[in-house]
């Protein structure tokens, strides 16, 4: 059975999340959605199946201090799955203050959710007028951008072109690998938001344009940044596994997301992985194409990233 795709919508109240949600629901695409909301905003939601939930963030006892899950989502997603065949996809609208990590980790941790549902993408809607202020004063706003696979830079009609370029730079400083779309009234082709497969190992390559850009940018005000590293020489699988495990074990609380496409020595297939905090999923996927440069790429998004140490550690994974 195909797993039901789940799209998570984040963003501050007033950014345009509910507008986007209603666009998704009313567009003629023939798909039926179940919608999970934390709170009813000022705009109604135009759908038959809306479930309201209280955020219940639960700690796991699995030794990962940062491993929290959304107990309410586990219950609601598995409960919704009992209505077999009555919807095609699920949209989760989170509150402006919700931490995306427990939502994403829920899909890594709970076997019932994994069996029937898959996290498709985290979509973050930001308000061009006030995102600079939010980035400066709100940990949640920074984390929502750090976790995003797709970012709608919304309300572009209320900002100048220079403002937007500057804002995009600030967003890139936090998250190098997300797709950024400039929108008004959350108007966007839905195929840019839905069915992204951003958490599918098979689809990580889709983010190649941003992904390839090596480097890192420190945002001036804080803490969360992105770093991408590349290696032209093939890597040693054992060395890499030891390194990534130890990095995620020791620094996983600070590393919000990680993903990579790796070329291991004596392997014809690409190794693809991605992680949320200390949790990681990785596997061999498709073969490297004949004309494809076998470059290993890895991205970390997090706080207090020790760039020289990460770079040195990654380079030390090269096959001897």
């Amino acid at each position: 059975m195909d797993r039901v795709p789940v799209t998570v919508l984040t963003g501050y109240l007033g950014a345009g999340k509910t507008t986007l949600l209603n666009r998704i629901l009313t567009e003629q695409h023939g798909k039926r959605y179940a919608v999970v909301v934390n709170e009813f905003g000022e705009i109604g939601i135009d759908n038959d199946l809306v479930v309201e939930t209280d955020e219940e963030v639960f700690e796991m006892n699995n030794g990962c201090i940062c491993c929290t899950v959304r107990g309410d989502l586990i219950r609601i997603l598995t409960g919704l799955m009992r209505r077999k065949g009555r919807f095609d996809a699920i949209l989760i609208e989170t509150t402006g203050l919700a931490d995306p990590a427990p939502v994403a980790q829920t899909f890594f941790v709970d076997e019932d959710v994994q069996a029937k549902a898959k996290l498709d993408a985290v979509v973050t809607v930001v308000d061009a007028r006030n995102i600079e202020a939010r980035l400066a004063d709100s940990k949640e706003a920074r984390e929502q951008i750090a976790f995003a696979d797709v970012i709608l830079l919304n309300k572009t009609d209320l900002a100048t072109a220079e403002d937007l370029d500057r804002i995009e730079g600030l967003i890139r400083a936090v998250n190098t690998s997300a797709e950024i779309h400039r929108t008004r009234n959350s108007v966007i082709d839905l195929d840019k938001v839905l069915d992204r497969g951003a958490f599918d190992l098979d689809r990580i390559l889709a983010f190649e344009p941003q992904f390839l850009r090596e480097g890192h940018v420190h945002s001036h005000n804080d803490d969360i940044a992105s770093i991408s590293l590349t290696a032209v020489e093939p890597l040693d699988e054992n060395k890499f596994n030891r390194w990534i495990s130890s990095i995620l074990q020791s620094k996983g609380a600070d590393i919000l997301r990680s993903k990579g496409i790796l070329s291991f020595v004596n392997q014809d297939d690409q190794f693809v992985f991605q992680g949320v905090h200390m949790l990681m999923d990785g596997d061999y996927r498709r073969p490297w194409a004949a004309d494809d440069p076998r470059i290993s790429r890895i991205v970390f998004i997090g706080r207090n990233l020790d760039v020289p140490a990460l770079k040195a550690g990654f380079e030390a994974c090269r096959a001897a």
Partner: protein
Amino acid sequence: MPPEFGTFEDEIYADRLPASRVDCFPQAAGIVALALGASDTLAVALDDGRIAAGSALAPAELSAVEVHDGVSQALAAGPKGGFVSGGDDGRAVLLGPGGALTELLPAGKAWVGAVAATAAGGLIAVASGKVLRLFDAAGTLQGEAPPVATTITALAFNPKGKRVAAAHYGGVTLWYAAGLAGTPKALPWKGSHVSLTWSPDGRFVVTGTQDKELHGWRIDDGVDMRMSGYAAKVKSFAWSADERWMACAGSPYVTSWDFIGKGPMGRPPHQFGASEEFLATHVAAHPKLPVVAACFEDGRIEMGRFMVEGQVLLKEVGGGLPTGLAWSADGGRLYMTTEDGEIFVVDLEDLKVSAASGKGKRR
């Protein structure tokens, strides 16, 4: 006293049941839950929100009633016949033996995530979000507890039906059922508790946790027990007829813990299971004999005997993902339901035990 074992002993490890002993009764919709009730009645919750109920002897002739605008999230046999169901529409009902519906809770915002009933106490417990309510066997509200801190995930009465336990994040809360009066007793343990069972001797409460472990409390002295090593959350428990063994699903093996004396601490569990690949989804203990049946993700049903190696195959691989497993009261039939809407009935005439003798029928 443990009941005596019948002629079954010699057969169990020798062979498998002939396929002709398994019948399949397809329903019009997928099945999300199964319950067997008093007087050989059976109910299945269908994935379209209806509940089909009738004689367990005629699963082809169940009659379905519209119950939930959504789907049942919890189904149990009623305290004095009939069935209780709670759904994601917020509604909870008592479905009478004749098919009449008594509404316990009207549709509302909070899902009903758990129900339980006690024949001994003549009560029904319904958890709606964080709130526990008790009803008598006729469906009249008897009490409502102040909300616990997080959503209630599972409910269980003690064997006498005098106390009721609710599992939630951070442990279990125990109330005295009489009006839910008095300060409830907290059985704390960190983590999210997702399933619950109360031992038939009344001495232990055990939960399954989000962390794929079991946590147990010895109620008299509050001693904690931890049982780990599961591949998945443990959501199905079964206590042996002699009250000694607690079997559970959640791994490719059926794991049975020995609760004699002080409890299972320091004793390895008994295990059986023919495949390492597919998880046991449900376990059900024979009502009289010391055997337990289990169904697996691949549709297999196996049966094992406590303290004895091995298992017998009762149903081959096949059919949809199991959603319920239960014995008839006489132990002569075993029922399994699936997501795909099948009711499988395994004929186990050899294991039929009359209530009076407590012995297996001789061939």
